[in-house]
């Protein structure tokens, strides 16, 4: 069966692109706030002011003639990530894990010359990867060290966690795992694995690759049934706090776990995608409705997280099939889906 029915999607509470653009982005995200998240330097500064951990900024390049200074800038660091400041969807990110004799090594082991990096930086400055092709700037960040929990769940890239935050309430989460098919990138379209994560516990719920269920990582063969995201509460609180930080009501927060520094925010997205629903095998609509039904938004991120954990915890786990003893969430969700 290639197509599913509208009725089925509606009964699951799946939100479509039109509904997302109209009812979520159009409604909760005022346009003038977009630059806060579209410009990663601004986001970084904001996050630092709010006391949120972010990867360390090693340097920036704003002008073409500064490209020549790149060699000096990079010489001090063995590992770094080069990013377009206004890039989207993980485009234009260059990761270097090792530097040796004027050769730079990518996670795949391929070696590139300095000229390659210079051209990459120059392309970014010309606006190749930015929204609408506008001239851009380049930021160089410290490389995140993979948390041992995820070691066997990733091929080349570092897994990142996408949390959808509606008006400060984390409502759905997904872990994105790079695969060989996705060329080390955490982009679901290109074949990365999306793992739905239980808001209540941080456990893996369900996983998909190319929209179809998978039960273990396609490259490492490691099953997802043992996967639990550590620092779960801290992580949700970080995500929830981004609402106060940006003022955006519908936000995709991308978080990575650093081995040494714990969870940190790497990117915010004002137009988060909808594949997270497939990864969770659940629709966003009932959870959106639950948040919209609230009379007022709790100003404290921690208590918002508690609300989310109570209400959006999974009723059943599709990877570890067992009923969870959580009567409150059960009745609440059952009432919602009726």
């Amino acid at each position, binding site marked *: *069966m*290639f*197509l*599913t*029915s*509208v009725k*089925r*999607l509606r009964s*699951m509470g*799946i939100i*479509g*692109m*039109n*509904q997302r653009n*109209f*009812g979520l982005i159009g409604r909760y995200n005022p346009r003038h706030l977009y630059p806060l998240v579209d410009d990663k330097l601004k986001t970084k500064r904001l996050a630092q002011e709010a006391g949120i951990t972010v990867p360390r900024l090693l340097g920036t390049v704003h002008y*073409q003639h500064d490209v020549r200074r790149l060699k000096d800038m990079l010489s001090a660091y063995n590992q770094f990530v080069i990013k377009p400041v206004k890039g989207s969807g993980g*485009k*234009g990110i260059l990761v270097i894990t090792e530097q040796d004799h004027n050769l730079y090594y990518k996670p795949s082991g391929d070696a590139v010359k300095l*000229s390659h990096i210079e*051209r990459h930086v*120059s*392309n970014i400055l*010309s*606006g*190749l*990867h930015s929204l609408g*092709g506008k001239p851009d700037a380049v930021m160089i960040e410290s490389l995140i060290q993979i948390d041992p929990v995820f070691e066997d769940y990733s091929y080349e890239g570092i897994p990142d966690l996408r949390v959808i935050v509606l008006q400060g309430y984390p409502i759905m989460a997904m872990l994105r795992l790079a695969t060989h098919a996705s*060329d080390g990138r955490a*982009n679901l*379209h*290109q074949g990365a694995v999306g793992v739905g994560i239980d808001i209540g516990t941080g456990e893996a719920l*369900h996983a*998909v690759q190319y*929209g*179809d*269920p998978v039960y273990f990582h396609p490259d490492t063969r490691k099953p997802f049934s043992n996967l639990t995201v550590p620092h779960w509460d801290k992580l949700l609180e970080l995500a929830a706090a981004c609402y106060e930080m940006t003022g955006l009501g519908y936000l995709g927060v991308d978080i990575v776990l650093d081995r040494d520094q714990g969870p940190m925010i790497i990117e915010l997205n004002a137009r988060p995608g909808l594949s997270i*629903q*497939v990864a969770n*095998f659940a*629709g966003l609509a009932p959870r959106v409705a639950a948040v919209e039904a609230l009379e007022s938004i709790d100003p404290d991120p921690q208590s918002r997280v508690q609300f989310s954990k109570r209400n959006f915890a999974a009723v*059943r786990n*599709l990877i570890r*099939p067992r009923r969870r003893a959580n009567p409150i969430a059960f009745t609440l969700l059952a009432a919602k889906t009726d």
Partner: protein
Amino acid sequence: MQASARLYTVVILILFTGIGLILYKHLILGFPLMPDEKKFVWTIEAKIDFQATGEPVIVSFALPPKEPRLTFMEEDFASSDYGFSELSSDEEQRRVQWSKRSAQGAQTAYYRLSVYENDKLIESQPSDDPLPPQKPELDEVFLTASLTLLETVRAKSANPEIFTRELIQTLNSPSPNQNQRLLRNDKAGENYKTDLILNLLALEGISARVVRGLFLEDGRRRQSLTNFVEIHDGQKWILFDQNTGKSGKPGNFLIWQRGGQSLLDVIGGKNSQVSFSIIKNIHSTRNLVVNSGMHAQAGLIDFSIYSLPIEQQTAFKMILLLPIGALIVVIMRILVGIRTSGTFMPILIALALIQTTLVTGIVIFLIVVSTGLLIRSYLSRLNLLLVARISAVIIVVITIIASISIISHKLGLSQALQVTFFPMIILAWTIERMSVLWEEDGPREVFVQGAGSLLTAVIAYLFMTNRTVEYLTFNFPELMLVNLALILILGQYTGYRLTELYRFHSMGRHHVSDKR
């Protein structure tokens, strides 16, 4: 919710204005809703010949009366060096006059009229009151014969209408009796017969007059007017064919003149005669309506695209098709959910396809884009700045297009010459974007978006080249309002896109764990 209420009010307003204007143009101004409606336009030329005698010349000529059922498109008068004036502008009795101080030899004057029957269903009735019949002066024999004839006819009739029909039929009877033969005088012409009927009717006390007109038949030359007799039965005028007695106006009969006034008067000339030639043309109804609207200064037409020079009108023909393309893009993206490279690039491709025809256009597009992608992949190794690279791609595109033109010309494929209609800058950007897409998201995404753009372009092309659509958009620019309303409504659609039914297809399956 207030915002959506406001939107729907605006939508309904726009929709009603659009539909209202369309209906007004269709019902009142007579614009046909379909492009196929054709009308016959008759062009009648009256040629007046006479021999001038060297004295001052005055030619006076009767023109056909304007009837509501007929639309006079054009009236032309031509003569060599004659003064010209219209004598009376009375719709019923129009006359023109040519004059000259002195003329010698054969003289000719022309009058040309283009006329067509419009759709107004008003049966035109002459409204003038009849003159009381004047008793004719006849000699004894003739009078006796007439009275006898009238008596026989009267015996068979009940009212003036039946009487007249009976009278004409009796006079035209193939086996006339002595009386009839005397009256009829078979050697005399049409005019004699008309006079006879009018005299007999006058004796009977019925008001009557002669009506001259022209049978409209295509390609007739040297025609003359045919006489009809019109009687007044006390309430209205009734027209009779003086040869058959049939009442009513035949369908293709153009009434030229009513009453006994002369058709043509020539002072200062002799051997005057007038002959008519008739041609039938087929015109589209739309042109006729536009023409008559321009003449009548109907505001909606006078202040419309039709008032622009023809060249700009053709440009607008194209521009007015763009909203249709935009609507298709909106439908494809919002309802179907097809990804295209560049939101409105499909419309531009569609416009190019219109110039090149479908298959040629697609082939050319594929050749240019794939060659461009090849060359672009080489350029990406040259380490260029973005703007320089796109400019380089533009030049590459132009080179490809030029070579396609030259090669196809040498091969005798004239269609491929149309390649120049493709928007080159847009093509260059498409190539640049697709090549970046290729590097970043892989060839699959390039094919998905490329195919999506082409599919949308082809669908837009099919709609934009549809004759009816083309006709409607150009002749009813108000359709844009309807289109706008549709797009505004579609902008509110929050349901699933068709492609999302596939995207979320795994959600449709009952999960394995459900079966437990």
